[in-house]
């Protein structure tokens, strides 16, 4: 039995000198065969395993991870959660996530620190104003909260903002239900929850190939030997093209480095998320007090997991322009992740040319927010015959039929 985390368990363990805490998940050896294998222990993969066990009655599941769980983009992102995308298909998927975020800490008995603190997209040009107007109206029609802000109203939210930048702030789009969550906690919470339901999470186990017989996947080759499975779901973000190639097909995806940085800690200063696509600055403040700043992605394909300094310079320049008050702060850490970008900036949740092999990828620069919803609908797709209706529009086929879900404006720069 898993111990339940609560105020009482903290008191009880404090009395016991904190020696009685259980490990949050086991580290089992792989079995010879599973009903389902999930490749990649990021938030999306772990969440998929959790919902398979919890809601679909599939408990003979393994999650295979080449490094440590949560060490991919899940542990590297700037944790912005919002659902104000343009199209109906996206609205359904991202808003499903927002709904799940609201109850997630309770569901997992793990504090994921979901904080719907409000998010503002700034507009710096007539075109930006038209874009947020169109998107806000489309959000409104889809039942997603959206409010138009005048520059004065933006100033009320962020009193120290400099509206009169080289590209002046002309307005903003506010989603009050948007915010942030603790990225690591999402991976840890799903891992602990899935493990409690019997899922084997196997770290340091790299998938190096697939065993495919008569176009049906039979299992995976790994650094720890062959492991059989009835179905395999690949949820490996930036490395999806590498695995697709092993399975004999290509994806409409390219991988890039995307960077972020955090500052030294300061007292609470900014209590919402502010992003600007126009001059590329987005910023929030963590509960530890650090400013969390997202930079751009390098323009060239990369698996280096670090990015160019020129992008940091550009981002920090934009931040200082908007918030001169931060100009003398020091940055403490900077890092990069490998993001998997599709041309329409929408994800892929799909069957593949190989039977019983599924991919969930293409989340690119903005999939953290979608973790619960993506995991939920992907689990139901793996468990059933057909893709879940919310996932269905995101099939790989759309790149052949032309039914793209173009979120270029909502997601190209902003996360």
């Amino acid at each position, binding site marked *: 039995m898993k111990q339940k985390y609560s105020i009482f368990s903290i008191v009880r363990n404090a009395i016991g000198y904190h020696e009685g805490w259980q490990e949050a998940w086991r580290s089992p050896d792989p079995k010879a065969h599973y009903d389902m294998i999930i490749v990649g222990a990021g938030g999306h993969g772990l969440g998929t395993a959790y919902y398979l066990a919890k809601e679909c009655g599939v408990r003979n599941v393994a999650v295979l991870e080449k490094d440590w769980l949560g060490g991919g983009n899940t542990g590297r992102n700037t944790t912005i959660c919002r659902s104000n995308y343009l199209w109906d298909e996206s609205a359904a998927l991202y808003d499903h996530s927002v709904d799940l975020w609201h109850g997630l800490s309770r569901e997992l008995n793990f504090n994921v620190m979901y904080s719907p603190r409000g998010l503002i997209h700034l507009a710096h040009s007539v075109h930006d104003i038209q874009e947020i107007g169109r998107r806000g109206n489309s959000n409104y029609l889809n039942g997603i909260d959206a409010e138009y802000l005048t520059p004065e109203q933006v100033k009320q939210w962020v009193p120290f903002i400099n509206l009169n930048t080289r590209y002046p702030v002309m307005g903003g789009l506010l989603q009050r239900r948007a915010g942030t969550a603790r990225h690591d906690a999402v991976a840890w919470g799903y891992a602990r929850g899935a493990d409690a339901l019997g899922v084997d999470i196997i770290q340091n186990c790299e998938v190096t190939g697939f065993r495919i017989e008569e176009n049906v996947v039979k299992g995976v080759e790994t650094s720890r030997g062959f492991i059989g499975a009835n179905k395999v779901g690949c949820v490996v973000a930036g*490395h999806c*093209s*590498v695995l697709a*190639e092993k399975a004999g097909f*290509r*994806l*409409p*995806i*390219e*991988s890039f480095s995307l960077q972020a940085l955090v500052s030294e800690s300061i007292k609470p200063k900014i209590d919402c998320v502010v992003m600007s696509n126009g001059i590329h600055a987005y910023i929030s403040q963590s509960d530890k007090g650090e400013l969390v700043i997202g930079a751009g992605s390098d*323009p*060239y*394909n*990369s*698996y*280096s997991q670090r990015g*160019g*300094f*020129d992008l940091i310079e550009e981002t920090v320049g934009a931040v200082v322009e908007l918030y001169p008050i931060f100009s003398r702060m020091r940055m403490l850490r900077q890092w990069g992740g490998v993001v998997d970008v599709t*041309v329409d900036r929408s994800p892929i949740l799909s069957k593949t040319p190989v039977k019983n092999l599924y991919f969930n990828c293409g989340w690119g620069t903005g999939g953290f927010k979608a973790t619960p919803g993506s995991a939920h609908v992907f689990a139901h797709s793996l468990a059933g015959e057909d893709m879940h209706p919310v996932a269905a529009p995101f099939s790989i086929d759309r*790149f*052949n*039929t*032309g039914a793209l879900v173009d979120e270029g404006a909502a997601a190209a720069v902003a996360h």
Partner: protein
Amino acid sequence: MLIVTCPWCGQREVTEFGYGGEAHIARPENPEQLSDEEWGDYVFFRKNPRGVHYERWVHTHGCRRWFNAVRHTVTDEFFGSYKPGEAPPTVPVSKG
């Protein structure tokens, strides 16, 4: 900063360049005869290798000419740049 070699101008910083993605993708001769699969494949699907990548660059803030380069996508090491129509440089076996 990443240093890119333009075959006409020599070594310059990456901020002078634009990127054109995977190289050597020939436009189909008879687009009207392609199936949706073939057309989608040509327009959207890419190798995206973790390793040696043949790619297109344009020297936007320099001579404004397009060229090809071979680069390793993990180490960012360039194995050479070449003009359109030229043969790509060979990549050392140990680096492939």
